[in-house]
């Protein structure tokens, strides 16, 4: 994941948002911003260092309803469904199941899983630039001149229009990481990793890939989750090491100081979800991040900000009655856990994203209707605003 250098973090962003929003969230129409002093002369200055926060709404599998929203800092507007509105000539829009989003060099890259593509758009106006075809892509990270994308791959051997499939291995194939040239949008090659790779992160010339085995776990004969992180050397683009962590890995984060954090979802019956850490220097010694005793982390909602990793969780993921649970947020820095005591009442967290001292938490509601996006100020422990989003708002990226 790209490490954002956040220059004017908390104060200015809070100011920018507070200045442009009403109590119930960013204003939804231009007239809300009308002011009697708007014609006074003045000089335009940049507020903060970002232009937009993009929100990729996953949509529902088979419903073709992934959408791109954004929050524009210049006027504090939250805009819905920007990509489909700005590209009306594309018959089926963005496709479905947006699985990741990232911004590089003025381009926003959207990973659309069930559509089998990465859609590249201009960050200024969300206009289509390129489509990169990748079978079942999952997550993306940029490093240097290249983008790296995890893919379940479906046993695709040769890539491209005349692709072929390893039929004998097609029932339970391993996943790959594709390497893409950022400038030309061309796929350069791939490297095989574990089963159904999910998140990935870069640190010190290595790629760390979290393998889930989410599909393998449903298949004979093993019915087993993957439990490894694959380490790929970026210089040789080869798998160099496999680290055993815990079943069903989801996200991987680097704190930029040599610690790699991995969230795991567990096996949903007797192995709990959790946050694990290992040192890039000694990857074999993996430890579970302790700090809250018996409370299990729900490893699915996590965000990284510089050296800190935020994890949201509740008391158990084994409750089959899905009654309301109290959610907790923990921030982890150098293995030390701090309880951030965020008031998440009314929110069932679906995804989290850290911006300076703010934390964005989304709620997917019933997972088929519109969800919501809420911004918290961690320093003041306050809810800043909530806005309606698309279906399953799950992924965020900053354009700065």
């Amino acid at each position, binding site marked *: 994941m790209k490490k954002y250098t956040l220059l004017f973090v908390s104060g200015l962003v809070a100011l920018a948002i507070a200045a442009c929003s009403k109590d119930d969230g960013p204003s939804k129409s231009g007239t809300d911003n009308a002011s009697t002093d708007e014609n006074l002369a003045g000089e335009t200055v940049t507020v903060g260092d970002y232009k937009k926060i993009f929100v990729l709404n996953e949509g529902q599998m088979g419903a073709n309803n992934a959408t791109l929203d954004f929050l524009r800092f210049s006027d504090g507007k939250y805009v819905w469904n920007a990509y489909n509105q700005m590209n009306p000539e594309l018959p*089926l829009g963005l496709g479905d199941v947006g699985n990741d989003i990232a911004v590089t060099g003025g381009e926003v890259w959207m990973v659309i899983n069930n559509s089998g593509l990465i859609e590249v758009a201009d960050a200024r106006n969300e206009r289509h630039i390129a489509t990169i*075809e990748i079978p079942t892509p999952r997550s993306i990270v940029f490093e240097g001149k290249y983008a790296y994308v995890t893919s379940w791959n479906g046993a695709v051997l040769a890539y491209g229009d005349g692709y072929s499939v390893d039929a004998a291995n*097609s029932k339970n194939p391993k996943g790959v990481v594709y390497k893409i040239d950022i400038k030309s949008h061309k796929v350069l090659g791939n490297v095989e990793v574990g089963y159904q790779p999910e998140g990935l992160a870069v640190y010190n010339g290595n790629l760390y890939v979290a393998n889930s085995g989410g599909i393998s776990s449903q298949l004979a004969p093993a019915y087993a989750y993957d439990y490894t992180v694959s380490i790929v050397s970026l210089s040789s683009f080869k798998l160099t090491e496999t680290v055993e962590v815990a079943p069903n890995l989801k996200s991987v984060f680097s704190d930029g100081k040599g610690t790699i954090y991995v969230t795991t979802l567990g096996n949903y019956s007797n192995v709990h979800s959790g946050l694990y850490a290992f040192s890039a220097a000694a990857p074999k010694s993996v430890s579970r991040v302790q700090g809250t005793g018996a409370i299990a982390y729900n490893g*699915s909602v996590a965000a990284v900000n510089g050296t800190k990793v935020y994890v949201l969780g*509740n008391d158990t993921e084994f409750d089959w009655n*899905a009654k309301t649970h109290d959610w907790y947020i923990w921030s982890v820095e150098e293995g030390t856990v701090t309880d951030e005591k965020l008031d998440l009442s009314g929110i069932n967290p*679906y995804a989290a994203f850290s911006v300076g001292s703010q934390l964005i938490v989304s709620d997917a509601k019933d*997972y088929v209707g519109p969800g919501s996006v809420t911004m918290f100020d961690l320093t003041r422990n306050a809810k800043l605003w909530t806005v309606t989003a698309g279906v399953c708002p799950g992924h965020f990226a900053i354009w700065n």
Partner: protein
Amino acid sequence: MSLLLSVFSAGLLIGPGPVCDTLSIPAASIVVRKEAPPSARVSGAALAFCASAADAVRTFTGLQLKDYGGVGGLKTVNVRSLGSQHVGVYLDGIAIDQAQNMQVDLGRLSTWSLREISLYNGQKNDPLQTAKEYGSASALHFTTAAPGENRLRARVSGGSFGSFSGGLLLERCLGDQWSLRTSAEYTRTDGNYRYRLSGYRTGEEGEWKRFDSTLVRENGDLHSLKADAELFYSAAFREGRIGVRYYGSERGFPGPVVRRADPFPLSADRQKDHALSLQGQWNFATFGRIYELTLRGKLSDDYTRYETHPERNPMALPYDNYYRQLAGYLSVSQRLRLGEFDLSLATDVQYNRLDSDAGQFVRPTRLTTYTAAALTWSPDSFRASASLLHTFAADRFDREAGGFTRENTSRSVFSPFVRLEYLFRKHFSLSAFAKRSYRMPTFNDLYYTFMGNASLRPEDARQVSAAVSYHSGDRARPDRPWQVQARAEAYHNRVLDKIVALPTASQFRWTMLNFGKVDIDGAELEGEIVIPRPVRGISWGVTARYTYQRAINRLEPYAGNQIPYIPLHSGTVSAVVTWKGWRADWTSSFTGLRYSTAVSTPDYEVAPFSLSDFRLEKRLSVRGGEYTFRLSLNNVFGSRYEVVQHYPMPGRHLITGVELSF
């Protein structure tokens, strides 16, 4: 006095053929006096036109057909917004059982040997119905009749999208008391119909831009074979039938139309089915029909295998599993007639088992007992009936895992029903019913690997309904050749403990929960005028139907919105004209705006559509045989529409066929 012998279908225009030379009177005609009329019915020539049972019922009031398109697409019905699992589907009085998901695919049912399809809200009031039927929120009946004469029918039809169907049906009278019917039918289609994606969207600076592309539905082919044989016995006060049926198919699932990278197909999913059943019934009457007894039984074996073929579609999640359902069913219904009173007692026992090679499958079995008592009191011009059903279901499964604990594996519910009918001024009737019924959680709800929740309660449906109807009489008089009939009905339904899928404490792990609550207010209007006896060789009929359904979700976070896929307004108009062996049939239907999710905002709209079908038939008698030529022009105006979002339906298409009967 005739009690509402409804002629909802213009099918009555062509009378039945001569009957076998037997002494018996079919049971159905005896109970007519006691039976509340169906709310919709189709029979005769109108039924013969329909490619499948799903086609035949789509114009019924209050009924929503969910259709994924093409011959092979799943077709289920939902009556009065209660959900398809609340509709009991009966073939000759015995429920078509689907324990896995309780969704009966009407696309599988052939209309060929059917005499009638009828829909009953609440329940049919047949004193000899099975106990199970007292528990359906509504009942869709498919009825076949004993052979009327020695007859061989052969037919072929074909048309658009590589569709072909051919079949033989043999009916024999074996002496005075026995008769036999056997039939076989093969159907194929390529299902490669074209669909168009086009539309306007707001672009930059508010201008409108257009996209327009025509695509072809792929992987929608189907081959199916249906075969059955049924033996009938009929004597004074006794009749019985026993039949064996087979249905086999191999088909592709084209999947929803979503954006997909060019090199990869949308779907390579295939499904194979084999279903075999043995079904029989025996009816016995004594003491001058004061006492009657009906025994019914069924054995069925239903195998389905679903494969996603990842070697052909690398985008597919690898999946190759079979599901096999075994079921046994026995029902005893008794009836005692005491003057104006009619007492019924019925008991059913049913066994279901589901096997699969899916990972960590728990192989559930279920034993269900249904016990019902019903009383009907029918003095002149008034009828009151009440029934009470007790349903008890006990499940067993292999092992505890995840949410499958052995607590709460048995379920017990009572379903009461009351109906009142009052006839006045000879032609009018008022009727009302109230019913509380349940649908048991399906095997999928309870035991689907990683998602099931073994402690679900049955879903609770409550209905209150009142109707007024007018019928001009079932016999045309010389001075009044026409018949008119009209019906207006209003209802309020409530669904509680609705079984819905929701995420657990871990959002990556979903489960089924009793969570939903829906309030439904509906109205149905229906009017028909028919000239059944030809005037200058021409007879005709016109029917208009309108359905209003306000079905409001009471479940947060979207409380107050219309539930998905239920239009506020829908209706049909159909007309039929016959003249010297010719018959022409026109049906237009309208389905109003719907929403694909629980949120009624423009982002989730599914466009309204209207659809028109034209059918033409000509009968010719040639030396003791009869030829029937048929032509169906479906979707005459080439409407582009979707019943289920992202499953485009076929445009204009033609089927022609000929049937030979001798």
